[in-house]
């Protein structure tokens, strides 16, 4: 958008603010990462902004892996099947919640060959490394895990945002706990695992996420349940929340076969 006059730019932003559905048309396609879930893309005015930092946190500690999966899938989409992704993990986070596992990453579209892993001794080092990595244009995405939430405050995240804006890279800040600390991130998501719809054979179906967009600089917030299709490498809208919730009433040993 650099070639547009600032005034025009400002007007467009104002329009998007008034009606988020106008978003996709107003933003250049490569400036945003589309999730291909219409509701979410509309709320994000076209998709997840590139050259920005996005925050993810689990709704409860047991949902951390779901938050990880969502962030990984987005980083993989951002790489467009070729860019490299850097995963920064403090030692404590790996000990506490396990480390990234190669074969599993492939299911979220990020083959191990396109991933670099950096283990850092302290959380504060993760922030430093993330800022450094965001400046590097060779990386499609940078994921940093933070076991402590207080260190990534407004100042720290603003540095990350500036670095990302400079290079056009995407930063994914994966907090281990949902935090109220203000931050400069473009979006903030709270993610919970959602019971999957069993597949045809009664086994565990596609990974399902219960997403809450709790902060959005470019539009409204919202809540969606989506699934990840590992074969198509794309997100899909899940059945409505009400249907998914019936799973709670299912007796323990009932064969979990349902239609639809």
């Amino acid at each position, binding site marked *: 958008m650099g070639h547009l006059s600032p005034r025009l730019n400002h007007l467009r932003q104002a329009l998007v603010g008034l009606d988020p559905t106008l978003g996709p048309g107003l933003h250049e396609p490569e400036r945003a990462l589309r999730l291909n879930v219409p509701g979410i893309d509309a709320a994000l005015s076209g998709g997840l902004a590139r050259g920005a930092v996005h925050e993810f946190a689990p709704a409860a500690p*047991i*949902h*951390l*892996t*779901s938050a*990880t*999966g*969502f962030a*990984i899938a987005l980083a993989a989409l951002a790489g467009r099947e070729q860019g*490299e992704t850097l995963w920064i993990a403090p030692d404590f986070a*790996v*000990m506490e*919640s*396990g*480390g*990234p*596992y*190669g*074969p*599993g*990453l*492939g*299911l*979220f579209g990020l083959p*191990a*060959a396109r*991933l*670099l*892993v*950096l*283990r*850092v*001794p302290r959380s504060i*080092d993760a922030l*430093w*490394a993330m800022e*450094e*990595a965001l400046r*590097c244009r*060779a*990386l499609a995405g940078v994921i940093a895990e933070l076991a402590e939430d207080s260190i990534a405050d407004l100042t720290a995240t603003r540095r990350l945002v500036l670095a990302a804006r400079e290079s056009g890279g995407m930063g994914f800040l994966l907090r281990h706990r949902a935090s109220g600390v203000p931050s400069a991130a473009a979006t903030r998501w709270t993610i*919970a*695992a*959602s*019971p*999957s719809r069993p597949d045809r054979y*009664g*086994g*565990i179906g596609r*990974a*399902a*996420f*219960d997403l809450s967009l709790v902060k959005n600089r470019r539009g409204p917030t919202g809540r969606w349940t989506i699934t*990840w299709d590992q074969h198509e490498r794309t997100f899909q809208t899940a059945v409505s929340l009400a249907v998914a919730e019936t*799973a*709670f009433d*299912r007796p*323990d*040993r009932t064969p*979990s076969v349902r239609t639809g």
Partner: protein
Amino acid sequence: MAEADPEADRRMLENIADWCDRYTPLVGLDPPDGLVLDVTGCAHLFGGEAALCRDLVARLARQGFRARLAVADTVGAAWGVARYGTPGVIAKDETAAAVLPLPIAALRVEPDIVTALATSGLKCVSDLACRPRAPLAARFGKGLVLRLDQALGRADEPITPRLPVPDAMAEQRFHEPIAREDDVLGTVEHLARQLAIVLERRGEGARLIGLALFRTDGKVHRLEIGTGAPLRDAARVRKLFEERLAVLGDACDPGFGFDMIRLSALVTERSDPAQTGLAGPDHAEDLAHLIDRLGARFGLRRVSRLVPQDTHIPEFAVIAVPAHGICGALAAPSLVDQDTLSVTRPLRLFEWPEQVEVMAQVPDGPPIRFRWRHVLHDVAVVEGPERIAIEWWRDDRGNKLTRDYFRVENRLGMRAWLYREGLYGRETPQPNWYLHGLFA
């Protein structure tokens, strides 16, 4: 009074050897109390051999050491003269004249040989030099003749340097010591530029760069930086050392300042100039530099790539290999790819599987409920078992139990990868359950 401490003496000698590195990169230890320096081609930098000696003795004296010093054509002659003769510089053709009047002990031979020779009336080197060699060798061993030849320059004697001798190096001395980090880094960049000229002429780049910071009080800090690709760019070299210094902090204390800084290319590799494409910037080099920088800051082993292995054991199926040196083109072996595509694997794997309490209807059945980290989870859906037997060649810890893996989903949608260790009744009467990983 103090106890003799040979270890501490040796460390002290090594420290002095480190410091002597400022005169020549070829410094050898001669325990318990000697150092051997090869100053061939270095002496003119200090105003000649005599000036070098004066400088060395004076600087050592300032640090509180007394030294006896001799410069000679051979190691043997210098050794003997420094200990038994008049210390100083022995001119090129005066080696024999200087060595011959010395006592036999000056030849670096065993004390019992010296005593044996003395009882036969042979007291100084000249007594030996004029005798026939064969009887000497037969009576006192070949070592004596060899030492005699080495002292007189008839036999070759190499110096074993303490540190690897760099392929190329550049150094800077200061009249006034410098202590500020900016100054040090500026010097590093300046030296790297000089080094780059030498390396470029040879068509090489450095893979391992050493930086030696000589403190005025004699301490020497040595830092080494490895790079993923041959490197010549001075600005990048500076950046790498900047990261390293930032981590070291107080460990690299400048004290009263550094009076000499040396940058050396310890390992070099061929590096041909690459044609840049017109299509757009190629980021491979940027990435290699980022890996180097992160490696300089956190250690090269901490930046890794996950490389699939040809095994079914989950914790060995992928290993982390330092990314340093592996270029982005590394492709996963296709064989392993086919294997892993068919099965679902967790996103996060625990290094150490965590033990869980599991309730199952029958001992070898799937779990119904499990307790992990004090929380009880009801299993809603279960898939499994997937049986993975430990390969027989991996039983070094006596751990040969077969594992039955289950993918489970609890009521909330959390998915975990549990396994039962040991086949019920056949391998163990009471199998334990573990949580090995988590799915998204």
